[in-house]
């Protein structure tokens, strides 16, 4: 039996553990910052299904007369009032509900619900109506033929048809006669890490009814709130898994 004294490894172990720990942190920490930057997205990066954009609307905070979200959307996208309410496009509108039995009044904004299984995408003959991988439902106006089938199919009446020639469009929101359009979740802002115009306006006026964010990120404000409060989809019976959820209705 050899009674050679074994070398004392405890010091080395401690060093190695510490060094390993520091290396791990040093490796992951930039990764954590990287994940944050991925979510904010660089201009040359494609969107991914790691993100699912959604909106949570607290109707308890929606006043009946308030139109801040509508005004902001119209201004952002150049939607003008031509005095023809039945043909003027409306991407978002305030809806007033009065319960037939109890008389309780509720007000809420209604826009494209950005469904996971959109009926408008199903029925579009050319594929112009499509769902981006990050959950935003859009119209490719380059191939839209203006058949309006998506307008027939949408359960939320989210889409509008452009009935007349448009001029002076916003560069970030191209719109034209003969095509169909709807709320885009302000992708031109969202892709650059900002919030949709309606959400920004509501927050800016301190109403706080609209929360927008990544439903796939459990740490986002919207996910945390959606997990804490009771909210529902409008026409949940259709099983479309909408990106917009409502609480208080």
């Amino acid at each position, binding site marked *: 039996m050899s009674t050679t004294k074994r070398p004392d490894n405890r010091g080395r172990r401690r060093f190695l553990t510490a060094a390993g720990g520091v290396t791990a942190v040093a490796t992951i920490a930039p990764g954590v910052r990287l994940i944050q930057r991925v979510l904010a997205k660089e*201009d040359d990066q494609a969107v991914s299904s790691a993100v699912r954009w959604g909106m949570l609307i607290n109707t308890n905070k929606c006043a009946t007369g308030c139109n801040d979200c509508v005004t902001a959307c119209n201004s952002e996208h150049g939607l003008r009032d031509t005095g023809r309410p039945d043909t003027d496009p409306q991407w978002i509108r305030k809806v007033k509900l009065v319960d037939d039995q109890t008389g309780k009044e509720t007000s809420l904004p209604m826009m494209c619900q950005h469904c996971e299984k959109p009926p408008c995408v199903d029925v579009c003959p050319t594929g112009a109506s499509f769902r981006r991988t*990050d959950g935003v439902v859009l119209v490719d106006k380059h191939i839209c033929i203006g058949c309006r089938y998506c307008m027939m199919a949408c359960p939320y009446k989210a889409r509008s048809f452009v009935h007349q020639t448009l001029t002076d469009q916003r560069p970030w929101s191209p719109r034209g006669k003969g095509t169909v359009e709807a709320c885009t979740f302000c992708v031109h802002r969202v892709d650059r890490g900002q919030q949709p115009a309606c959400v920004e306006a509501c927050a800016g006026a301190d109403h706080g009814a609209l929360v927008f964010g990544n439903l796939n990120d459990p740490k986002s404000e919207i996910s945390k709130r959606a997990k804490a409060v009771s909210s529902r989809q409008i026409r949940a019976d259709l099983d479309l898994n909408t990106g917009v959820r409502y609480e208080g209705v």
Partner: protein
Amino acid sequence: MTTHRITAFLLSGSLFLGLALTANALSGPKIPQARGEKCVEPVEMMRRNHMEFLKHKRDATMRWGIRTEKHSLIGCIECHAAKGEDGKYIPVNDPDQACHSCHDYTAVTMDCFSCHATVPKKGAAPAGSKGDS
């Protein structure tokens, strides 16, 4: 004799007409000078392929959210839109302006500006991106 005169008249007339038309054609479209030192691609490549660049980029932007400035229509307009004497931008598809002068000359219809803005807008891209005007 009269038949000869008529033939001669017709021939010389068509020759003159042909020369005039050719002279007009050879003079080419006049495109106003754009801003900046040079275009994002060499001029010859742009002349032949700008529609392909735009088509590819529009799908990349719309379907994949790629919003780089190169090859984007907003990018084109920012350099190619001229300013009038009043300091305001002239729509880029007006006659004699960047797009229309070539497209009219080549008799190729373009569909862009039924939907797209024809002038750059102050704060054209939301703050935080490149290409703020």
